[in-house]
């Protein structure tokens, strides 16, 4: 069997296995899986409103997934997407609130601010990794907490507009569009999805079609070989973290400029960054894969909101199914072995 086919089949089988085990769990706990999955489907695509919501949810997932996937391709595990996401969100909202500019300047400026903030936040672990070989996982996890509490502090003390949240961004920085909202009967869908798709393309182009991308991937495959070939491993490590952080920052800007239009004090992590890890994993760390797996996670997430009401199934079950999918993707080795068995028998 071709490698390509196998890399497509593995995640699909993982998803199916996740759904099947989810069905069994529902049966065991006395819920009706057909009702549950119907509610899940209708809750995501049964109404144009819900489809709008799904697209809104998918937008940050794509970008967070890209952020994780990009670093992963260079052999780095960026767990700090959540933190970079949060600082990006704040930076975008700050620009959106503090300035009053024409839309053509204001909106890009807010997004660039988020990119820079996310990139800077990821630069630190990148630098520490390149210079002192400090493991990026540890640094990024710690920097998630630093981001959360620093941003909460800034919102509470500097940007507070009552009720522990910032003011609304100016219309000129907003990604929202009355037309899209009209189209989806008042969903919170916004233009961010276009940016997310553009970013998918940028990531693909950067990694697959440029010299820099070749270097980055080479470092990911084998640092020593890349070094021997005359590439600067350290420079590429820092660069990949910064780009990864920039993607995460844009994801934050999507929430700040599109979904919410403000930023409130966060009681805990939003989970977008961590879901990004699952998205990247399921998507096989490729741009197209990330797009589709973000679509799956986004529709599961939004569809799940309707499950308790329509089918009486607790929405935690969807979390279980997502967890199972991640589990099966992570254990894709088993799936691969089984697939190989099948194909070998076929040859005989």
């Amino acid at each position, binding site marked *: 069997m071709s490698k390509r086919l196998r890399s497509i089949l593995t995640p699909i089988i993982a998803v199916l296995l996740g759904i099947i085990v989810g*069905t069994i769990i529902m*049966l065991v706990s006395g819920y009706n899986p*057909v009702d549950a999955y119907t509610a899940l489907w209708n*809750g995501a695509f049964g109404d144009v409103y819900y489809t709008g919501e799904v697209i809104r949810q998918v937008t940050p997932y794509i970008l967070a997934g890209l952020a994780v996937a990009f670093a992963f391709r260079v052999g780095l595990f960026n767990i700090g997407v959540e933190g970079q996401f949060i600082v990006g969100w704040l930076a975008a909202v700050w620009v959106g609130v503090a300035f009053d500019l024409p839309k053509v300047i204001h909106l890009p400026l807010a997004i660039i601010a988020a990119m820079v903030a996310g990139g800077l936040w990821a630069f630190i672990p990148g630098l520490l990794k390149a210079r002192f070989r400090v493991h990026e996982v540890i640094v990024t996890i710690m920097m998630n907490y630093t981001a959360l509490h620093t941003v909460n502090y800034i919102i509470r003390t500097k940007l507070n507009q009552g*009720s522990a949240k910032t003011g609304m961004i100016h219309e000129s920085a907003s990604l929202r569009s009355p037309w899209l909202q009209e189209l989806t009967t*008042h969903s*919170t869908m916004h233009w961010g999805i276009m940016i997310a798709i553009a970013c998918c393309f940028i990531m693909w182009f950067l990694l697959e079609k440029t010299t820099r991308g070749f270097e980055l991937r080479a470092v990911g495959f084998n640092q020593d070989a890349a070094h021997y070939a005359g590439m600067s491993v350290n420079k590429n490590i820092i660069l990949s973290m910064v780009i990864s952080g920039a993607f995460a920052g844009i994801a934050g800007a999507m*929430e700040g400029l599109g979904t919410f239009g403000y930023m409130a004090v966060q009681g805990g992590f939003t989970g977008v960054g961590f879901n990004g890890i699952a998205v990247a994993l399921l998507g096989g760390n490729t741009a197209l894969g990330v797009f589709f797996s973000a679509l799956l996670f986004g529709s599961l997430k939004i569809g799940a909101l309707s499950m308790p009401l329509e089918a009486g199934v607790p929405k935690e079950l969807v979390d279980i199914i997502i967890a199972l999918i991640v589990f099966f993707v992570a254990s894709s080795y088993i799936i691969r072995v089984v697939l190989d068995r099948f*194909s070998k028998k076929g040859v005989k």
Partner: protein
Amino acid sequence: MKKRKIGMALSLVLAAGTLLGACGKSDTNKPADTSKGGDKEKAFSVAMVTDVGGVDDKSFNQSAWEGLKDFGKDNGLKKGKGGFDYAQSTSDADYSTNLNTLARQGFDLVYGIGFLMHAAVDEISQQQAKSKFAIVDDEVKQPNVASIMFKEQEAAFLAGVAAALQTKTNHIGFIGGMKIPVIERFESGFLAGVKAAKPEAKVDVQYSGAFDKAELGGTIASKMYSTGADVIFHAAGATGNGLFKEAGDLKKKDPSREIWAIGVDRDQNDMGPDVVLTSAMKRVDVAVKDLSTKAKDGKFPGGQTTTYGLQEDGVGLAPINSKASNKDAIDKAVKEWVEKIKSGAIKVPGTLEELKTFSAK
């Protein structure tokens, strides 16, 4: 050949899924049908959206849900569409989707529980102008939104009095959730209560920064108890569950030690019958039920803010634990202060700013 094998494997998997799905359906079909037959006549239906704490947070959201269930029971409603129900949020982004979904499902009145939902309620109420909404703990100025506020400081004040009279070490703890106006009302009321009853007692104030982190609550409580505090009050939602666990564990290890915790929002005696001294009750359930009844009778206070205080029985102090050594003294003192607050003789400070100038005399 290869592909056929894979195809077979896939179709087997699919078939298994459908089969399993099918047998589930036949199991549960009948009860589902009967329940649907019940709600044919259009009754007044209510629903609520929880914040990230969830409906089983043992405090704020749960209290609101108990109020809804109570309202449903009194009016012969069933859980589900056309009756009463809730939607749970796992992140801030879920609020508008949940509010919108419930309004679309035709619920007559939809509650947003918690100040975090302010922006979402404001926006959705304008889009769904025909539906009625209500928000707890914040004010939304829209004609189809009723706002519910509480004088948390009055309940917290009484809790402060109880804590001050019970403490032996003159060292009391306060664990807050997030630093937001609601919790500030709890904090300033509590501090004022302690000050009024025992000015020399010291209160250690700490914020956990979250409403859903029980382990964090446990850590803070453990530190407070080990540095000499013997009564701790929490206003931290599910984070406070860690306090009860910590207090219960300490009490189990050394039953003779004086360890007390004070609950919040609802009577949290069930969280630790041996260690819960009392609870500063914020009767979200009473308010939710009251407002639902008003709305059902066509007296929906849209665009207005209803404030529930001691006077309206919207806040209060739960019965003092009978194992408390100073129960009689506390009961007596609490009764006196309730009179004073109700009569308006003293005004409990609602902000830390007001607390500075507060004097109980």
